[in-house]
């Protein structure tokens, strides 16, 4: 079990990084890439990734920053990517929705809903075939779970027992659309996963300890060859769907947003830690400073870095050619 303080620290880090970036994004307009912040949803990425080894793999959808960081993705590489620099983790070609850090086991994120659900399934299938004990995790939203490919992937994974953990961050919205408009009342994504014979749990996605415990069960099952596994994590996003602003009172009712602000995953983890660590507020303050500094450094480096050279525009469209033998 990961030290609860470490889980808290990870969440604070993601919160600080994203808050700093959101402000800069809004004020400078220099990060010209659509961004989907995970502020308010940090427990999902942190709780799950803490259950992984470095050589396990993560694939995500568009809301990618938190999992990238939680999996150990390089912060300066991510920030430079948002600034479109050659030093970005995708060399400025992919932007916020195409983060990747292979060394950290963050394989990639993708902007089209559902794609990475199938990709993660295939990666897990490949690893499983090779007899590796590595596990693959994919993060996606309640909205992506409406795509046909979600069901097709679960069916395949169940037949082939692929070691993949499906993590559905259910924040009850797809952009402005509440889940009630999109999925039948009284049901759950969890129930759909179970219908494929997949072990599935629905847990409080803002309780990092609970998330982590469930993720450990999921990862252990996959590592033991008993995968796939499914987790539905109920949570809530604090910012607007895309961009640094807020949609309170526009796309979502004020009281609803406020009720979720009270269920802040960082605050809850801090409160839970207090009995064991009475100095938790000091810790938080110190971390806050540490991570905002870390972010500012990464921002400064990104700004100083060069843009990709325009004469390299088409580089990477193709791999190396195959010549006749």
């Amino acid at each position, binding site marked *: 079990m990961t030290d609860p303080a470490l889980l808290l620290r990870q969440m604070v880090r993601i919160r600080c990084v994203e808050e700093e970036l959101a402000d800069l*994004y*809004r004020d400078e*307009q220099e*990060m*010209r*890439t*659509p*961004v989907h912040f995970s502020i308010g949803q940090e427990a999902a990425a942190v709780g799950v990734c803490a259950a992984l080894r470095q050589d396990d793999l993560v694939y995500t959808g568009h809301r990618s920053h938190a999992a990238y960081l939680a999996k150990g993705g390089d912060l300066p590489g991510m920030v430079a990517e948002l600034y*479109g*620099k*050659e030093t*970005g983790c995708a060399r*400025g*070609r*992919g*932007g916020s*929705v*195409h983060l990747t850090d292979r060394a950290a086991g963050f394989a990639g994120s*993708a*902007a*089209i*809903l*559902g794609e990475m659900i199938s990709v993660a399934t295939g990666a897990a299938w490949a690893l499983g075939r090779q007899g590796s004990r590595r596990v693959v995790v994919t993060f996606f939203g309640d*909205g*992506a779970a*409406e*795509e*046909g490919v979600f069901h097709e992937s679960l069916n395949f994974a169940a037949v082939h027992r692929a070691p993949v953990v499906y993590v559905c961050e259910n924040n009850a919205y*797809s*952009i*402005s*659309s509440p889940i009630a*408009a*999109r*999925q039948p009342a009284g049901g759950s994504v969890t129930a759909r996963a179970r219908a494929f014979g997949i072990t599935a749990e629905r847990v409080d996605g803002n309780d990092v300890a609970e998330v982590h415990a469930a993720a450990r069960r999921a990862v252990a099952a996959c590592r033991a060859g008993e995968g796939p596994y499914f987790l539905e994590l109920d949570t809530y996003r604090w910012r607007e769907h*895309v*961009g*640094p602003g807020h949609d309170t009172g*526009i*796309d979502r009712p004020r009281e609803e947003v406020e009720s979720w602000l009270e269920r802040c995953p960082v605050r809850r983890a801090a409160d839970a830690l207090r009995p064991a660590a009475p100095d938790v507020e000091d810790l938080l303050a110190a971390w806050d400073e540490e991570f905002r500094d870390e972010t500012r450094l990464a921002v400064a480096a990104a700004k100083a870095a060069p*843009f*990709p050279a*325009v004469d390299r*525009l*088409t*580089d*990477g*469209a193709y791999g190396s050619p195959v010549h006749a033998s």
Partner: protein
Amino acid sequence: MGRTLTYWQAIAEATVQCMEADPCVVVAGQNVDDAKGSYGTTRAAYERFGAARVIDTPNSENAVAGICIGAADQGLRPLVVHTRADFMFLAMDALINLASKWRYMYGDQSGVPVVMRGVVGRGWGQGATHSQSLHSVFGHFPGLYVAAPASPADAKGLLTAALRADTPVVLMENRSLYATEGEVPEEPYAVPFGKGRIARPGTDVTVVAASLMVHEAERAAALLAGQGVSVEVVDVRSVRPLDEDVICSSAARTGRVVIADTSWARYGFSAEVAAVIAERVPEALRAPVRRVTPPDCPAPVSWPLEEAFHPSAQKIADACLDLVGGDRSAVPALAGVDAGFIGPY
């Protein structure tokens, strides 16, 4: 001087007017009912007709396409909105393998007049999967009408034509056009599919284009007029049917042709226009045909690359100059039509 509307307002107006005229018209798509209302285009319809006729859908592009085909088969006229045309890959089976073939393969007894709008996502760093223009892919298959209006008036008229047609229609809208303004008649009217127009007359070079590239071509033409080069701009308006006559007669007059397109050259719009010329008026060509299109790579995010990637008035002007043997360095630099785009996303 008539009334002026923006491109998005023209679409919104056509939608409301068609819904008023025909109670079978319904709007369906992700988030069509929200405050932003698909760049404003579905907002007026939602305010006027409510959730019963402006329907927020699950993220299920394939089934939603099929569902709208089935609804069309039973008398509805669904207008499906995709906030990125790129999402339509997921609806291609339904659109191409079913809707486009329906009337023919069931023996010309019934049609499924579903209309799909796909927004081409220009803007900051939309990247590889959020900025593709799919008009030529849809245009390859008989059984569909495919249009890509450039002006607010055509956006209204072609959408109205679509919602009255008994053939499925795909409309491509470039997001960079939404804020552009133009005269738009107030009463409902249809612009026919397959009729191009001369957007600007000229004598030295023909630029053939659709959608956003018509504006870029017009700007290039204005610029070159200052250099004594007279550019004719042909706006095809729809890519299927394609108005071969307007293309060929202009090409025959000028003898020099540039084709500008937001999608790639290979097997794209620019290929077809060149082919039509090679088939019908090759002898008129006084110079090789030139294509101004994105280079052969996916759309990058980093903005200097993005600038270099997208075709523009500048590149069109350069191509025209090359054909008439003009001097590029004499021409001032131009910014893109979407230079007025305000971020952050």
